[in-house]
């Protein structure tokens, strides 16, 4: 204090011009701050009414209506995009606000068919936004299928289906184990000829896996066959979808079972335009323990 009194270290009073400059700089800077923070907060707007809610890859940590944790944990790097063999995963754009750079699946264009077998996206995720607490496709819960246009469903009208499920221009791919066990092929290269359309059930990865498991030979007495030694939900314990006879009708009705994981293959393969079956992202069933 005494030093300041002697005036040796006291700062000279600022001139009026300098004070004005400082004031203007402060106001400008305040404006910059409000602007940038305002834009960043605008990123929260799409959360209203869950406008940025989407079908997420397997293992996305979320509750029924809330994916706050998933959006928080995702570091927006796209490693899940890079490992997906059917290129089902896309990154959301800025219109998703805080969801920018976060992975999603547009099931109608390309669903997750689990043809990587090992949930590669989950393994690739560096932050656990796709939780590592699942091992097999039957463990995942992305959503739940729903027949949203029963009147349009070919099976319910008793109709068959002949030709390309989604036309020659469709870019989506699926694994057809009978064609190639390891490489997914374009749906447009795989014509069908069905007396009764059962595409949603026929291509369901969970149903396919159940059939595969049933076909595998049980181990001979006294020897343990490695392939037959199933753990956890490696073999889906519950069905996901089945065609059941309609009461008093000639057609069959797709019925969604509690083994449905919401992968979206049924939505992708449905030959009706627009699709008769969709995935609800706010409904899932319990995972069998």
């Amino acid at each position, binding site marked *: 204090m005494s030093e300041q009194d002697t005036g040796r270290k006291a700062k000279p009073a600022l001139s009026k011009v300098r004070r004005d400059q400082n004031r203007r*700089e*402060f106001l*400008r*800077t305040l404006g*910059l*701050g409000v602007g*940038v*923070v305002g*834009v*960043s*907060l605008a*990123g*929260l707007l799409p*959360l209203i009414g869950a406008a940025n809610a989407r079908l997420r890859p397997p293992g996305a940590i979320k509750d029924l209506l809330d994916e*706050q*944790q998933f*959006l*928080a*944990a*995702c*570091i*927006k*790097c*796209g*490693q899940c*995009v*890079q*490992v997906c063999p059917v290129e089902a995963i896309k*990154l959301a*754009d*800025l*219109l998703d*606000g*805080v969801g*920018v*750079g976060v992975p999603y699946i547009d099931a109608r264009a390309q669903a997750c068919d689990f043809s990587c077998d090992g949930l590669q996206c989950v393994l*690739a995720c*560096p*932050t*656990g*936004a796709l939780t*590592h607490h699942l091992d097999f496709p039957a463990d995942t819960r992305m959503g739940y299928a729903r027949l949203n246009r029963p009147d349009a469903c070919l099976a319910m009208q008793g109709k068959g289906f002949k030709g390309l499920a989604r036309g020659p221009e469709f870019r989506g791919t699926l694994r057809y184990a009978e064609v190639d066990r390891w490489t997914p092929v374009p749906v447009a290269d795989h014509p069908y000829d069905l007396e009764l359309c059962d595409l949603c059930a026929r291509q369901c990865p969970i149903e396919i896996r159940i059939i595969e498991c049933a076909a595998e030979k049980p181990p001979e007495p006294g020897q343990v066959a490695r392939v037959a030694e199933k753990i956890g939900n490696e073999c889906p314990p519950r069905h996901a979808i089945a065609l059941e006879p309609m009461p008093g009708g000639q057609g069959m009705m797709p019925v969604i079972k509690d083994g449905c994981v919401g992968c979206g293959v049924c939505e992708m393969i449905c030959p009706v335009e627009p699709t008769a079956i969709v995935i609800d992202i706010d409904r899932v069933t319990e995972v069998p323990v």
Partner: protein
Amino acid sequence: MSYMLDSLRHLAGLPVERPAPERQSQEVKFIYERKSQKRLTKETLEAIDAAHAGTAKRHKWRNRRWITLIIVNLIFVVSFQFDVQLVEGAMTASRVVGFHFADLNSALQVSLAYKHMVLNLVIGTVTVLILWWLLGGRTFCSWACPYHLIAEWAEWLHLKLAARKWVRDVRFHRGVRSVFYAIFVVLALASGYTVFETISPTGISSRALIYGPGIALLWVLALLLFEVFVSRRAWCRYVCPIGLTYGLVGLTSPLRVQYNVESCHHEGECRKVCLVPHVLDLTIKGRAEDTKVDVAADCTRCGLCVDICPTDSLTFTVKGLAKVL
């Protein structure tokens, strides 16, 4: 110690006062005194600058840096396009031949919002922390950040326009960067969302390169237009928390730019090209505490000052390397 304090003041955007005479070494005082007795004429200085402008060294570090930055970012693109799996992911987080890397600021935002760090993220964060600590901290900004490069080109345009007096650099208080930093930390913690990542031009431009362009690039374009027509390098100078995070990493980093008072002509060309010119205030006559001083941690180690200095008074140095060798 004053290196650390000055660095922290620079990073926080606080003014760094000229050193008190008692803190300056006798040697440096002697050099300053000799210089004030024997001033170089304007013609001599101009001749030295002109001779330097024609040498191959004029853009040596800039060229090396641009090549490095482009290669780093292209490896991401090529790895994905041709599925060579060298570097998977984007600038925010990646796997480099299998090893986890995570951008420190992105990892911070995620951890604050999610309030949990899985082991892979811890590994990625520590790896990157060590890497950029060794390389100088804010070296990330000028040698790796994709936005930095396009912002440099925008800056070139801004300076051309400013030279013709078509635009005027609107300046802000540099302290606002640390205010932004605190705001984005609090927002991530309180809202549970990675609010900064939404507007980070580093993340947006890195993803756009690798996964294809989108609407988000319009935000990057808006920032660039602001920098061309309103305020020079505004994002990196006044806003970006990534720079501040890496600046803190660089506080104790061994890789620095060193200033040599003896050979300096105090023309100030280095401060004109610098993104963070306050770190070069020590090149003003009378400001250095000793004959050789390290440029503080807010420096991005871009090397523009090293390139432009006609007398090699600014050079890259690795602390302790001379002792080891």
